[in-house]
C-alpha cells in the first residue's frame, strides 16, 4: 500500500466537531483554502453531538468576563492556564453569539432575551442553551462549511499521522480515505488538530467510540508538549446496563432535594449519597468507594432512582420528558420508575496538547483546538465551558493557522517523512491478518484504565496500568489485518487501539507524577490538595527513549 492520492491546501483542519468546523470557517473567512477532515461522516459522528447544549457566556447584566474568569479558576482548583482561561472568558460572548450567524439558535425567555441558566460554580446565570444541543450546533456549523467555497470537506477519512517539512514544522498529514481505501497525503502550510478527547479509553464513559484521542497522540509523536493528561472530568451517573444503553447518562443534578429528591442506592437498598447532595467530585468518591466495597449491582454499578420522589410522579414525568430520557425509554427502561444501574464515567478531557492563546502548540505550524487542547479548565470544569471553548479556540486556531499559511512559503511535506508514515501503515497489512486478538486487547486495556485511572487512583494501580499499556503496545506491534480496501474497519480499529494504548501510558504517567488530590484527580494515597508543590501542570514530551514526564509552571 502506497500513497495514491494527494491534496494541497493552505490550512488542514483535522476533526470536524464544533472546534474543527469553527476553525475551518475562521481560516476560510480569512482567505485561506481549507481542507476539513473527519474520521466519521460529517455531523453524524464525534463527541460534539453528545453535548446537551449548554454554552457559557457572560451576557447577564450583572456578569462580566472578569467574574467568568474568577469562576473558571475557582472551579478548576487553581490549575487552569491563566492566559487561556482569560482568553476564554473574554472571547466567550462574541464567539457564542456569532454562532447565530451560522444558523445556530438559542432558547429565548418570555421577554425575548436569551434564557440563562445558573449552574454550580457560576456566580451569575451564564448558561445559554443551543436548540438541538450539540447536534444543533454541529448541524449549523457543518452547513456553513459545506456551502463555503473555500472549504473542501473530506469526511470518512482517518488521519494516521502528521507529516513535517524538512525543518520539522507541521506540513500536512497522511490518512486513509475510508470510501476509496486509498492512502492519501494532505499537504498543508498549517495544520489545526481538533480531534477531541480520549474518553473511550475508559470502559465507562458517555462518549461515542470515536473518542480515541488520535490527534493527541499524533501531536505527541510530532514533538508537541502535552499537559495535565491525568485531568479527566468524570460524570457520576453513566449507565452500565443494559448493553444497548451503555454510555447514556442520567442526571446526577436531578437527585437534589429541590429537584426530584432521589438518590443512588447500593445492592442492599441503602442510599449512597447524603443530603443535601454533595458536589460532584465528592459524590463520585462515595460512589467509587461503594463500588469498590462490593456494594454494587449485578453489572458493577449502583442504582439511580427517582421512582419514589416526594415531588410526585407527574413532576418526575415532566422533568424526564427530554430527548435523552426518551432515548433511554426506547430501550425498554423507564427512568421515571425503574432503578437505573450507573457508575462514574469519563466525560471530558481537560488536559491535552498545550496551546497558547493563539492555539499554537510547541511545534511550528501545528495548532490545536479543544477538546484535544488544554488546559484552560484546570482540575474540574464549569458546566457549559466545553462548547464555548470550541468556538473561542476553534476561531482563534483557524485565524492563526491562516496567518501562518500566508507567511509560510511552504516547503511542503518532507517526502521521506510522508513515505515513512505510509510505510508504517502499510506494514500493518497482511493478507492472512493475525498476530493479536484486537477485541480482547481493547477490552483488557479499557477495563484497566477504568480500574486504575478512574475515580480513586494510587501509585500501585497506576504503575500497573503503565506496564499494561506498554505490554499492549508490544502485542499490537505484531498485529496484522488484511487489506480489504474500502472501509477497512479492522485497520481503523488497529490504528485507534494503538493510539489508545499509547495515550493510556501517558495518562498513567501523568497521574502517577501528580502526587496529590485535586478536582477530579483523586489519589487515594495522597488524599490532600498540595498547593505548595502542585500548582503546576504535569508535562509530557517525547524523547527518543520514550515519553518524559515532568512539570511546567502555570501561566498568567
Amino acid at each position: 500500500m502506497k500513497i495514491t492520492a494527494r491534496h494541497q491546501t493552505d490550512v488542514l483542519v483535522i476533526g470536524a466537531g464544533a472546534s474543527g468546523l469553527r476553525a475551518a470557517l475562521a481560516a476560510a473567512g480569512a482567505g485561506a483554502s481549507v481542507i476539513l477532515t473527519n474520521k466519521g461522516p460529517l455531523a453524524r459522528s464525534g463527541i460534539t453531538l453528545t453535548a446537551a447544549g449548554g454554552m457559557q457566556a457572560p451576557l447577564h447584566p450583572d456578569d462580566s468576563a472578569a467574574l467568568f474568569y474568577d469562576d473558571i479558576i475557582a472551579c478548576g482548583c487553581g490549575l487552569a492556564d491563566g492566559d487561556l482561561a482569560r482568553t476564554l472568558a473574554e472571547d466567550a460572548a462574541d464567539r457564542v453569539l456569532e454562532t447565530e450567524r451560522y444558523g445556530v439558535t438559542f432558547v429565548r425567555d418570555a421577554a425575548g432575551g436569551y434564557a440563562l441558566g445558573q449552574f454550580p460554580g457560576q456566580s451569575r446565570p451564564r448558561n445559554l442553551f443551543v436548540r438541538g444541543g450539540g447536534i444543533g450546533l454541529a448541524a449549523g456549523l457543518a452547513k456553513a462549511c459545506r456551502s463555503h467555497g473555500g472549504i473542501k470537506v473530506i469526511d470518512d477519512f482517518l488521519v494516521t499521522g502528521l507529516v513535517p517539512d524538512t525543518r520539522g514544522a507541521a506540513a500536512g498529514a497522511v490518512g486513509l480515505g475510508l470510501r476509496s481505501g486509498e492512502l492519501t497525503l494532505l499537504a498543508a502550510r498549517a495544520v489545526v488538530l481538533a480531534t477531541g478527547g480520549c474518553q473511550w479509553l475508559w470502559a465507562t464513559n458517555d462518549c461515542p467510540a470515536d473518542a480515541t484521542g488520535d490527534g493527541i497522540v499524533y501531536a505527541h509523536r510530532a514533538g508537541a508538549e502535552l499537559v495535565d493528561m491525568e485531568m479527566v472530568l468524570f460524570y457520576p451517573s453513566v449507565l452500565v446496563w443494559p448493553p444497548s444503553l451503555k454510555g447514556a447518562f442520567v442526571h446526577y443534578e436531578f437527585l437534589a432535594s429541590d429537584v426530584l429528591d432521589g438518590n443512588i442506592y447500593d445492592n442492599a437498598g441503602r442510599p449512597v449519597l447524603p443530603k443535601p447532595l454533595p458536589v460532584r467530585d465528592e459524590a463520585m468518591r462515595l460512589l467509587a468507594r461503594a463500588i469498590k466495597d462490593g456494594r454494587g449491582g449485578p453489572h458493577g454499578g449502583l442504582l439511580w432512582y427517582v421512582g419514589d420522589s416526594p415531588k410526585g410522579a407527574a413532576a418526575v414525568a415532566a422533568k424526564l420528558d427530554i430527548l435523552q430520557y426518551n432515548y433511554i425509554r426506547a430501550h425498554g427502561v423507564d427512568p421515571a420508575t425503574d432503578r437505573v444501574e450507573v457508575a462514574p464515567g469519563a466525560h471530558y478531557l481537560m488536559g491535552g496538547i498545550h496551546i497558547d492563546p493563539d492555539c499554537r502548540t510547541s511545534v511550528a505550524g501545528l495548532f490545536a483546538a479543544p477538546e484535544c487542547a488544554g488546559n484552560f479548565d484546570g482540575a474540574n470544569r464549569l458546566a457549559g465551558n466545553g462548547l464555548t471553548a470550541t468556538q473561542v479556540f476553534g476561531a482563534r486556531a483557524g485565524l492563526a493557522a491562516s496567518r501562518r499559511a500566508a507567511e509560510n512559503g511552504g516547503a511542503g511535506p518532507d517526502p521521506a517523512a510522508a513515505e515513512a508514515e505510509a510505510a508504517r501503515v502499510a506494514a500493518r497489512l497482511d493478507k492472512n491478518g493475525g498476530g493479536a486478538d484486537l477485541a480482547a486487547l481493547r477490552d483488557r486495556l479499557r477495563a484497566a484504565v477504568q480500574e486504575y485511572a478512574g475515580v480513586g487512583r494510587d501509585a500501585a494501580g497506576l504503575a500497573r496500568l503503565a506496564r499494561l499499556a506498554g505490554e499492549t503496545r508490544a502485542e499490537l506491534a505484531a498485529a496484522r489485518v488484511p487489506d480489504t480496501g474500502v472501509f477497512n474497519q479492522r485497520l481503523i480499529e488497529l490504528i485507534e487501539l494503538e493510539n489508545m494504548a499509547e495515550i493510556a501510558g501517558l495518562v498513567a504517567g501523568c497521574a502517577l507524577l501528580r502526587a496529590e488530590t485535586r478536582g477530579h484527580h483523586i489519589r487515594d494515597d495522597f488524599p490532600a490538595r498540595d498547593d505548595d508543590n502542585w500548582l503546576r501542570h504535569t508535562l509530557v514530551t517525547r524523547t527518543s527513549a520514550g515519553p518524559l514526564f515532568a512539570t511546567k509552571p502555570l501561566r498568567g
Partner: protein
Amino acid sequence: MDNSLTITVKVFRFDPAADKSGRLEQFAVASAAPLSVMALLAKVRELDATFCCRTSTCFKGRCGSCLVRVNGKDAFGCTTLVKPGETVVIEPHSRYAVLRDVVVDFSRPLAAEGEGGQ
C-alpha cells in the same frame, strides 16, 4: 439453542471488490436482554471481524450515524429494539450508496428515495 437467549440476525454482506450484489448472512447472537439493532451489529462484528458497521452514536436517537434498514423499513439502529427469540433482517439504509456490508456513504444519497436503494 435456547430460543429465549438468542437473537437471530440476518445481515447484508457486500464486498465492493468481490461482489456484484449483496447477500444475507445469518448469525445467532446470544443475549438474554433486548438489544438495539446497533448493539446487535456490534455483536455480529464480535462473531465475525470481517463484518463492518458504523459505531458512532449521539445517545439521543438523532444523529443518524446508525441509519440502516430493519425488516425492510429504514430505521435508526440505535433506538430499534430486538428481543431475544426474534429474527431480524438488517440491510443498508435505502437512501444511500453502500460502501461495505451495512455501511453506507452519507455523502452519496441515491436518487430514488425509499425504493429499496439497490
